[in-house]
């Protein structure tokens, strides 16, 4: 209460040709708080932050921004940074080839005359890394540290700029539970040192945990601002605000009637593509039943994606041993076409880099993994193609005017539906879904859960890889845990809880 207001945005309205992205949005952030902004994808959260940081310069929007008691007019992002406002985007802005220290000081290098003062760089980088709790040599190239640590480097970079207002756009989207927790602790720690944070997040659990105030945005308008001090806020309340309705069950009911084991992996062993002594899968064995959703839990780097991709036509690492048995027959899956032929589908965790050709239309994407189905003698039949695509557009309720829409224009949730369509179109028996709801808003998430359950109910086997434990517990029938390439546990989801999973995901102390 006593805290002064550090930032006030008043009546912000921002229009793009044809759309009003923000309408009369007002926001008040108090100093030394963590202020969460929630809303579905496309609600206008990122646009608001771009207005604040000067990505959209003063004059391209209506309304005013008062920062530290004075009206400000940022013409570009450098202006806001000079004022101590630093935005950390979802896609990290680090140069993979450069070292941690070089990245922290990129564009802001301490100098001695005309030359860079490397000693100062090193000393100050070491200090900053200690402040964010990152135990790495500042000379380590960025590409050699994980995403979680890269996120910390971004924060160190912000601290170097003497940040007073830190804006984090989906900071934990790509992080596993342990790394997320570390990051959240860090943000809370910074709060104690007077750094105010604005955090955009889809993960309601995290918001509940750290936020002091929550502003909910829907369709470019502020729905409400909740002050946590005035009483606890529960997830349902936030969701209701975001989607404007109550979502019934977040997770679809389990049908409970899984069939026989039809897919079995035995002693699967895979070598890391670059280092021969590292194994990313060590004699892994598991089974999948018809109609069953099998969860895979593990920390980032545990080898879940690596296992999945090596099963999918050996698309990761070097296969050393192990067999795949499907319907009682040992099958050979040495390439993606063979995998597709055997009814295996893999939906990648990285939609944009691995899942879609962003230059394609919805129509071309949907049929792209099994063109033969709409072709005769190598010639694509446009009519059959159109029908197939329209069928999925309707069935999965993809929000687009028609199938000629480019997939690059769709929201994350709709893109994911296109990827799911693409793999459903291949008539798979087994779908491997790698982080299928990453970066997707709550409404679309729940729809994707429904789709996944429907697929299982049709008798398909589903492997669900997820870093969100509540998602695994809510959706899967059975959960395997992985640690350092080894399967460390198998639990029926109904009997498991987060703690039990965590213990098996990280059996030893440490990283």
């Amino acid at each position, binding site marked *: 209460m006593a805290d002064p207001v550090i930032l006030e945005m008043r009546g912000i309205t921002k229009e*793009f040709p044809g759309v009003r992205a923000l309408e009369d949005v007002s926001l008040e952030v108090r100093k030394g708080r963590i202020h969460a902004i929630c809303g579905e994808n496309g609600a206008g959260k990122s646009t608001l932050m771009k207005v604040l940081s000067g990505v959209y310069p003063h004059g391209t929007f209506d309304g005013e921004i008062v920062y530290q008691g004075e009206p400000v007019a940022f013409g570009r992002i450098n202006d806001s940074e000079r004022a101590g406002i630093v935005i950390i985007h979802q896609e990290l802005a680090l140069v993979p080839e450069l070292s941690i220290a070089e990245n922290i000081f990129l564009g802001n290098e301490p100098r001695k005359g005309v030359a860079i003062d490397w000693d100062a760089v090193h000393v100050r980088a070491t200090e900053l890394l200690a402040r964010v709790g990152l135990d790495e040599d500042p000379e380590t190239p960025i590409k050699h540290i994980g995403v979680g640590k890269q996120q910390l480097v971004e924060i160190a970079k912000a601290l170097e700029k003497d940040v007073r207002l830190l804006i984090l756009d989906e900071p934990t989207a790509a992080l596993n539970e342990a790394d997320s927790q570390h990051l959240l602790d860090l943000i809370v720690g910074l709060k104690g040192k007077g750094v105010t944070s604005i955090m955009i997040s889809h993960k309601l659990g995290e918001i509940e945990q750290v936020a002091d105030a929550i502003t909910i945005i829907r369709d470019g308008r502020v729905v409400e601002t909740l002050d946590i001090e005035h009483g606890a806020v529960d997830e349902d309340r936030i969701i209701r605000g975001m989607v404007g309705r109550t979502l019934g069950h977040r997770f679809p009911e389990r049908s409970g009637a899984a069939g026989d084991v039809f897919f079995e992996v035995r002693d699967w062993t895979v070598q890391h593509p670059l280092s021969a002594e590292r194994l990313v899968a060590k004699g892994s064995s598991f089974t999948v039943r018809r109609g069953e959703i099998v969860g895979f839990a593990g920390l980032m780097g545990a080898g879940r994606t690596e296992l999945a991709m090596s099963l999918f036509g050996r698309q990761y690492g070097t296969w050393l041993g192990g067999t795949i048995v499907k319907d009682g027959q040992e099958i050979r899956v040495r390439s993606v076409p063979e995998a597709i032929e055997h009814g295996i589908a893999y939906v*990648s965790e990285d939609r944009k880099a*691995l899942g879609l050709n962003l*230059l394609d239309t919805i129509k071309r994407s949907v049929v792209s993994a099994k063109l033969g189905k709409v*072709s005769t003698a190598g010639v694509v039949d446009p009519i059959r193609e159109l029908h197939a695509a329209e069928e999925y557009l309707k069935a999965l309720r993809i929000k687009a005017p028609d199938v000629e829409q*480019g997939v690059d224009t769709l929201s994350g949730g709709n893109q994911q539906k296109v990827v799911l369509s693409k793999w459903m179109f291949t008539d798979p028996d087994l779908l491997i879904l790698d982080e299928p709801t990453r970066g997707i808003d709550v409404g679309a998430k729940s729809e994707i859960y429904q789709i996944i359950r429907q697929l299982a109910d049709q008798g398909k086997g589903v492997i669900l890889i997820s870093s969100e434990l509540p998602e695994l517990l809510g959706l899967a029938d059975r959960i395997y845990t992985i640690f350092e390439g080894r399967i460390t546990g198998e639990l029926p989801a109904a009997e498991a809880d987060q703690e039990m999973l965590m213990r098996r995901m990280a059996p030893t102390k440490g990283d």
Partner: protein
Amino acid sequence: MLFGKKGSLKEFGILGALIVIVLAFQLATNGTTLSSGNVINLVQSQSYILILAIGMVMVIIAGHIDLSVGSVAAFVSVVVAISMTDWGIPWWSSILLGLGLGIAIGAWQGFWVAFVGVPAFIVTLAGMLMFRGLNQLVGQSRGIGVDSEFVALLAGYLPEIGPDTGYNNPTLLLGLIAIVAVVVLELRRRARRQSVGAEVAPMWVLVTRLVLVAGVIVAATLLFASGRPGTSFPHSGILLAIFVLAYGFLTQRTTLGRHIYAVGGNRRAAELSGVRTRWVDFFVMANMSVLAAVAGMLWIARSQAAGPADGTGWELDAIAAVFIGGAAVAGGIGTVAGSIIGGLVMAVLSNGLFAIGTGSDWIQVIKGLVLLIAVAIDVLNKRQGRFSIIGLLQRGMRGSRAADPA
């Protein structure tokens, strides 16, 4: 139809530019630009570059580049010439030999690109040097003549046969066939779409379009058919037309064509969708060399001799045509039709500037600027968050991406 049901605006843009340039020169040259003699000459003299552009756009869509086409054309053609003149083998078997050599060279370059993983830029830069050297080695840097039958086939014109109509009869027939084919195909497509309940344009739209297209074909036919006796529609033009139709079909309608776009658009995603990306790379590189062999043979037929400087700079003309035609440097975008139009823009520009007395020095400067500006407009249009009329129109016309059926 060249532009299908949803024409790409980008191609319409460049087509518009072509029409403007043609009309401007038509005025500036008092009608010589669109005289039958000039148009026939233009097709005869440019078809080899346009054929190269067809192969090149596929290479570029897949995300590669080919710098070796001029040297490959030169090497193949010198061997073809020697086989006729020095070895005395029949001209038709020389053509087969040339094609075979094109396939072999293509397989060689495709192997390094696709299976060893050497970037195409390097492989074809090496090829550019090697095959130029081999051309001079084999031909000993002299001019080598070719058979007259070879010239008659590849650099000839449709014959003067039938009653005296004042026009070249086979050219008229060709025009008629083209009109009938367009009408039949369009009607069939419409019927097919209707039968499955898909949306169709109103009949009057179709009729208007068919009348327009038929009008253009009639005008072109009469232009070509009214040439000086002995010159009419050139054989190389027929070959070009066949290639445009065949490769247009291949890129837009076949699974192989889809795979080329998929590889260029997102290689890893294509691989994970079951596309055999290496074979796609191999195909586009090998195909390019085969087309280079064809272009080389057309060239020596027209100049009636093979020489050490043949094909110099061809790769650059072909690449320029492709990019003016709307292809993206990063791959995944481009069309055969667009590249042909891009090639024609360059050809008409040279031809017209030359006709109004511009020196070759200035012609090069102007062509360079045109390439730069054409691609710059494209880049500016794509830049996001920035208002542009063309960008707005493009967004309005959904599906108007270059990757759409041409």
